[in-house]
């Protein structure tokens, strides 16, 4: 998994040799019989944006609330910058949180909201005013300093909440679904703004989200969670291109999963026969599994070529089918191709040629699907 891959943003924002800044050691949280977080160990580096990604009820919010101090772990310990904070109440932790609902104090002005955290620390008035003002400047909300939260739009409230949670210069900023309440256009814009602010201040971010697109854009690393466990931790590229399980492959993006049997296992390639496919995969990377074992092959829709002509070369990594369905999405089209086995395969192709031009593949056409030997990923669980 540590192969160098061209992912400049990730490389610029993390130093892989850095000491872990936040450390969770075997953290478990139970609510009665229900195990919300199950024996999670995790290391987060200084200055990175770490995303906890998972569906609802996967334990990501409970994990975040334990970092904030609102929940106590049933067992295990939490360390921030070398200090064990496990038993500390929220008001003694060097951690701030941006709440999903923003939780702005409705009876205070924008400026009072931002200054609230500083006022708890007996900081001189002049300094409070200056720091709150500078933070409002950073999120471009200075002119709204005198407004009450109910007089602001959703995006403005989000910026005030961000300013309030950053003004104390926390060692760690927790963000609970930071963009969920914004509409799509604003969300895309705000994502990059968040990254900019994070890079300006150098604060370590832990973001909880159920939105994989949000996680992919924001995160330097992602931890995928399911049933209270962390299934995979890695860069967005790792998670997308090298999922370690069917769950991760299926959760991130869309994927075609084929059940198959390992027939040839060499150090530099494997062959997997699949009845579902009606053929075999030739994959140019090794797998650690017993010959004959049942494995799954994950193949991303955008990595499949669709063509009328039979591809040249020998017989693996290709299959014939019939176009059952086409969805035109503007920038790309999604094809559902039915194979002879009855299985439907999802294929996406960018619309390089303008729609409506002659010669385009259409419904009920017989087509060939093919892919590169580096494209499929074998998952064993």
């Amino acid at each position: 998994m540590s192969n160098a891959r061209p992912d400049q943003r990730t490389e610029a924002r993390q130093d892989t040799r850095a000491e872990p800044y936040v450390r969770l050691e075997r953290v478990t949280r139970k609510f009665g019989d229900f195990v919300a977080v199950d024996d999670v160990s995790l290391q987060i580096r200084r200055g990175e944006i770490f995303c906890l990604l998972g569906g609802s009820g996967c334990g990501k919010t409970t994990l975040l609330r334990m970092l904030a101090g609102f929940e106590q772990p049933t067992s295990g310990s939490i360390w921030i910058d070398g200090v064990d904070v496990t038993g500390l109440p929220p008001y003694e932790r060097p951690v701030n949180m941006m709440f999903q609902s923003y939780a702005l104090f409705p009876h205070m002005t924008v400026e009072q909201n931002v200054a609230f955290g500083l006022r708890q620390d007996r900081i001189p008035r002049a300094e409070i005013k200056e720091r709150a003002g500078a933070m409002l400047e950073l999120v471009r909300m200075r002119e709204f300093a005198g407004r009450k939260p109910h007089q602001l739009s959703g995006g403005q409230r989000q910026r005030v909440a961000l300013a309030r949670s950053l003004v104390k210069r926390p060692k760690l900023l927790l963000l609970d679904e930071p963009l969920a309440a914004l509409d799509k256009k604003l969300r895309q814009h705000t994502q990059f703004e968040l990254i900019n602010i994070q890079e300006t201040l150098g604060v370590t971010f832990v973001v909880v989200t159920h939105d994989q697109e949000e996680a992919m854009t924001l995160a330097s690393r992602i931890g995928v969670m399911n049933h209270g466990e962390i299934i995979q931790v890695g860069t967005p590229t790792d998670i997308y291109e090298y999922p370690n399980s069917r769950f991760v492959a299926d959760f991130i993006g869309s994927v075609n999963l084929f059940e198959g049997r390992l027939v040839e296992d060499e150090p530099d390639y494997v062959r997997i026969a699949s009845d579902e496919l009606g053929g075999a995969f030739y994959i140019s990377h090794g797998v650690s599994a017993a010959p004959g074992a049942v494995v799954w092959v994950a193949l991303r829709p955008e990595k499949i070529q669709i063509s009328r002509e039979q591809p040249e070369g020998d017989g693996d990594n290709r299959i014939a089918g019939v176009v059952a369905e086409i969805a035109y999405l503007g920038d790309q089209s999604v094809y559902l191709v039915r194979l002879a086995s009855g299985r439907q395969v999802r294929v996406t192709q960018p619309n390089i040629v303008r729609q409506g031009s002659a010669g385009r593949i259409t419904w009920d056409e017989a087509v060939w699907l093919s892919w590169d030997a580096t494209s499929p990923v074998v998952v064993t669980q």
Partner: protein
Amino acid sequence: MKRFRLRAGRAAVSAVPALWLLLFFAVPFLIVLKISVSGMRLGMPPYEPLFTWATSLVLDLRIHLDNYAFLWQDPLYRNAYLNSLRVAAVSTLLCLLFGYPLAWGIARANPAWRNLLLLLIMLPFWTSFLLRVYAWIGILKNNGLINNTLLALGVIDEPIVMLQTDFAVYLGIVYSYLPFMVLPLYAAIEKLDMTLLEAAADLGCRPFRAFLTITVPLTWSGIVAGSLLVFIPAVGEFVIPALLGGPDSLMIGRVLWEEFFNNRDWPVASAVAIAMLVLLVVPIMVFQHVQGREGAVR
């Protein structure tokens, strides 16, 4: 036409409470006001008519303001008013002190329990107010429940005098009016978003400070409503000081009663009532003002 009918319908709906207030508040109030400026006389009714025919053509109107002057001059009335205000204020504070944690507990209880707990708060209303106050006599008197128990246990050698003291009056008022404090407080606390308290803690605010800077301002409407619901009836309370209080616990409701039934001085009794009303209108207006402002903020 349709518009007219709509307006007529609205008028009909608002006419009912308006008529009610006219018949049962405005008219009696005017009668009391009239009696309060009449002179006293022996007879039935025990006050002089306001209008008399001086001659067959001249109508004679006599307004006696000396009833009010009398209230102002006699320290009995002033002391009774002040004492009523004091007792009501202290009782209100005590209700707030007990009521707030109670309301908080109910509002934060498991939803399945919440309605049951609210029902328990309202349960005493199923018994007559008078009976409940009488019951306290049985509990507090010298050979009552508490003293007998303590004597039997050997904790005390002679009974503690509780009945006919200020303590009994406060106990009675707090006991009787606590639900009126708890219910508006509950409504306000239930609406309070708990993540705001988490946000405060997250920003370094200790629980007690968070209570003062977040919880109190955001439940202020409930605090004001509950306090007025206790304070206003407590000022004019008659039954509790009469039954549980001693001869020296002088409250305006009792003075009114004695003036009316013992002295049979209706004009002075009416003046006492009018003065009390004026005294209570001030806090009611404060309440209205606060409520109006709250409405504007939200």
